[in-house]
């Protein structure tokens, strides 16, 4: 579980995060949603330790990030897997080398043990036989799956995904969503996803945190988001006619 208390972050005079408190639960897909400029990416980067913050605390299973020594931070980071928006694959390495990279850096496994693990995770993300391709030879969906494989290869306790569906067609986006949810449940990890994709919100949002202007405006799940009458949330989530109809049908079907 990740616990965030009263998190504040500014860039010069711009106060981006204005006191966010929430928890991200273990074994669940936790989603951060909100409009562009609401502070989602800054929040995620604070969680990852890529940005320092002025006030508040982030605790990973009781380990408060800002109070950890450099070695403890390094150890904690080895428990984190991250899927970047643009995949962030190392373009000079093949797909297999990309996936093997965290194992080479953080474990003392033999080459054959590492190869076995790489084969296992590539199979898990349905990328058997793509070992020797370069990232530039892979499609957007394949690159995302490689990024997921790299993120989970070292058996992380925490998985972070920044807009995992951006730039993907709807079918591939669903495949990626399902894959992330399956991995989260299978390995009982804490997954935090930063997304704009309302389909992901409806499908896999076991916990949803809605940010607006650097504040937490609402939190709930993909079930409660249908019922909420919080106007800020409904304005954002049901901004399209299609989602308005989906909500109406859900409410009618469930007699809410």
């Amino acid at each position: 579980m990740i616990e965030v208390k009263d998190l504040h972050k500014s860039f010069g005079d711009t106060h981006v995060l204005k006191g966010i408190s929430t928890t991200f639960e273990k074994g669940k897909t936790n989603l951060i949603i909100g409009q562009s400029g609401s502070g989602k990416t800054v929040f995620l980067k604070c969680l990852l330790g890529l940005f320092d913050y002025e006030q508040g605390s982030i605790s990973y299973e009781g380990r408060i990030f800002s109070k950890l020594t450099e070695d403890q931070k390094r150890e904690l980071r080895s428990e984190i897997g991250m899927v970047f928006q643009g995949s962030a694959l190392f373009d000079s390495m093949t797909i297999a080398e990309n996936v093997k990279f965290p194992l080479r850096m953080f474990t003392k496994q033999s080459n054959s043990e590492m190869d076995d693990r790489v084969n296992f995770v590539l199979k898990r993300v349905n990328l058997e036989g793509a070992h020797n391709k370069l990232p530039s030879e892979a499609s957007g969906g394949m690159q995302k799956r490689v990024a997921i494989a790299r993120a989970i290869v070292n058996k992380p306790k925490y998985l972070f995904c920044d807009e995992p569906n951006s730039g993907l067609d709807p079918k591939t986006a669903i495949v990626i969503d399902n894959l992330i949810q399956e991995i989260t449940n299978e390995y009982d990890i804490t997954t935090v996803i930063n997304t704009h994709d309302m389909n992901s919100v409806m499908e896999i949002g076991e916990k949803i945190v809605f940010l607006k202007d650097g504040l937490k405006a609402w939190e709930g799940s993909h079930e409660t988001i249908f019922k909420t009458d919080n106007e800020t949330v409904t304005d954002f989530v049901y901004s399209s006619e299609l989602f308005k109809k989906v909500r109406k049908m859900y409410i009618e079907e469930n007699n809410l």
Partner: protein
Amino acid sequence: MNYLHYIGAYALMIIEIFKKPTKWSVMKKLILKDIDDLIIGSLGIVAFISFFVGSVVTIQTALNMDNPLVPKSLIGFATRQSVILEFAPTFMSVIMAGKVGSFITSSIGTMRVTEQIDALEVMGINALNYLVFPKLIALLLYPFLISISMFLGIMGGLAACYFGEFATINDYVTGLKEDFIPYHIIYAFIKTFGFAFLLATIPSYHGFYMKGGALDVGKASTVSFVWTSVAIITLNFILTQILLS
């Protein structure tokens, strides 16, 4: 004040490069790759430029010697002094700031833009050590490149002398040996090590701390070339004052 900020950030970067070292088994491969990219990959251009600039220095010297009392061996002497003292270590380094420096800035800058550096940092890897340290070690072989430049510059002069019939080979070789001071070679190599350090670190700084997109990678490469050249010329002046005055 801005310049002070940059100098401070550069100094902090240098310190950070040596912290939290990457596993040797990984680092070994990175160093070999950088030796291939930065040193072996530059051999062709260094050989080509050195040979022809050495020839041009010889031709220019010969054409400007119209006094029959001046011995022809002066052509070899002038070529040797120009190539060993300045052309090979300093001006070849300015050329390398364009070739190697741009490569370093653009490759690290692209990694920054595509979040590959963020990926390293999230994994808890010291990205500066991972990316810059191998380049520093690879560029310890830079004096080898400069030795080749010195040799080919002098050979270029010899070829120009022979084919242009400006002097006999004997005269040229006599000039090469005339008043030879071995300390000049030491001076040239001390400079070379200093320039190698600048060539590895200044372009890395501009790539690592760049912000923006693809266009900014191009701008960072240009700025990096300008500042690396300025630093090389300035260090050349300082070291020449200290070592030769």
